Structures are given as structure tokens and as C-alpha cells.
């Protein structure tokens, strides 16, 4: 709540399917290329378009690299 009041915006929710963007997401296991299917493990925080804490992601089950 404090983060939201300070103007921070959440990046993703746990379990959410996303397209990997290194500027917004941190690849926990390694090997993801931008655009690859990924799942959020832990949400992050951003100010406007700039990520302060990137969301931690892993490769989506059965997902190809792109």
C-alpha cells in the first residue's frame, strides 16, 4: 500500500503468464531471450515505465524460447 501511495506500479502477479522483457523482468534461471513465454514468480515495482525492482520470472512450462 505504501508503495502504491508513493506512485509505484506493480509489475505482474505471481503465476501470471508474460512475454519476457529484460527491462521489466529478471530471468531467475537464465537462458530466456526477449519475447519468450515466461511466468512471474515474484512481482516487481516500477515508476512510470522504469522498473525499480524487476519481477522475477521463469520459463513457462512447455514454452519455446520465443
Amino acid at each position, binding site marked *: 500500500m505504501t508503495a502504491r501511495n508513493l506512485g509505484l506500479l506493480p509489475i505482474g502477479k505471481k503465476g501470471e503468464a508474460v512475454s519476457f*522483457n*529484460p*527491462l521489466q523482468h*529478471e*530471468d*531467475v*534461471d*537464465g*537462458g*530466456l*531471450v*526477449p*519475447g519468450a513465454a515466461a511466468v512471474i514468480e515474484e512481482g516487481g515495482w516500477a515508476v512510470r*515505465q*522504469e522498473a525499480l525492482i*524487476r519481477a522475477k520470472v521463469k520459463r513457462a512450462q512447455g514454452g519455446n*524460447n*520465443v
Partner: protein
Amino acid sequence: MFEATLSIDLGASYTKVAYRPACIPTQVGPMDQEARILMFDNSPLIPSLAIRTRNASQPWVFGRQAALMNPDGGMQVFQNWKADLFRPSNDKDSATAAIIAHRFFEWLRSKLEYMGIDVRQCQTRVAMPTFDTFDENAVLVARCMDLSGLGQPDAHSQSQGTARQHARFVR
């Protein structure tokens, strides 16, 4: 009157790019056209980092995206390709760097076109580190840029200033 100018500061750690739109007077009197620093992935600094992914759909990643990736064993990371590009000897590292430079300028051109900048209508200036082999390096970079669709640039040594200054003071 002057044409649109693209100025690329090919620094060792970061590349910086400035753009000054064409200035075509429509009336008599002084005119002013400021250059602006371009932002790539929310930053004016493009890290000198290249990653070869071995993924057919996206074989190369550059800039901040590359800097923030977590490469696995199947990926190749090139951190020092600019230094290899300007190496006076002609070995496998310098050959690799020339290929990376070509890919990098292709990536840069696509980014610029996405921003709405018609690179074919721009005169391009490049600032590079000053070496004894500056002329040879300039020819190499110019060839890489030409093959990447960025056109033949004017090359200048780094000591002459930043990308913004280059864009402002050309002509």
C-alpha cells in the same frame, strides 16, 4: 538550411546517439534547430554489450536488454567487441567484432526507424576513440554502417566531442 543529421558517439562503454531534424527555412531571419539525445529502452546510454542467443528468431540482442539478460551456456556474450573492432591486428576477434558491428548497426537502424527517423535522409556522423589506426578503423566502421543501411558516415575522433556537439555543429 541543412539536412537531418544523425550523430553517433561510438564510445568504449556506451554508444550515444543524437538527432537533429532538417532545418528548412520558411521565412527570412534567424532559425534555430536543436539536436536531441535519443533514448533507447528509456536510457540515452546503449551499453557496449552483445549477446548471441543461437535462437533463430532473435539471434542477437543489444543494448540495455542485453545488459539485463541472464545468459545461459548456449549464449555467447561479447563485452569488449568495440575494442576488438579497433584492434590493429586482423585476427579472429577483430573479424568477430566486425560481424557484431554490422549486426549492431542493423539493430540501431531498426530502432531509429521505429522512432520515425528516416536514416536514408540523414547525414551520419560518427565519433570514435582516437587510435593510431584511426583512418583504417573509420573505413571499417563506415563499411559496417553502409552494409547495415545507415549510409556512409563522416568519422571523427572522440576528442572532438560528444554526440550532441557533433549533431549541433555539423556544417
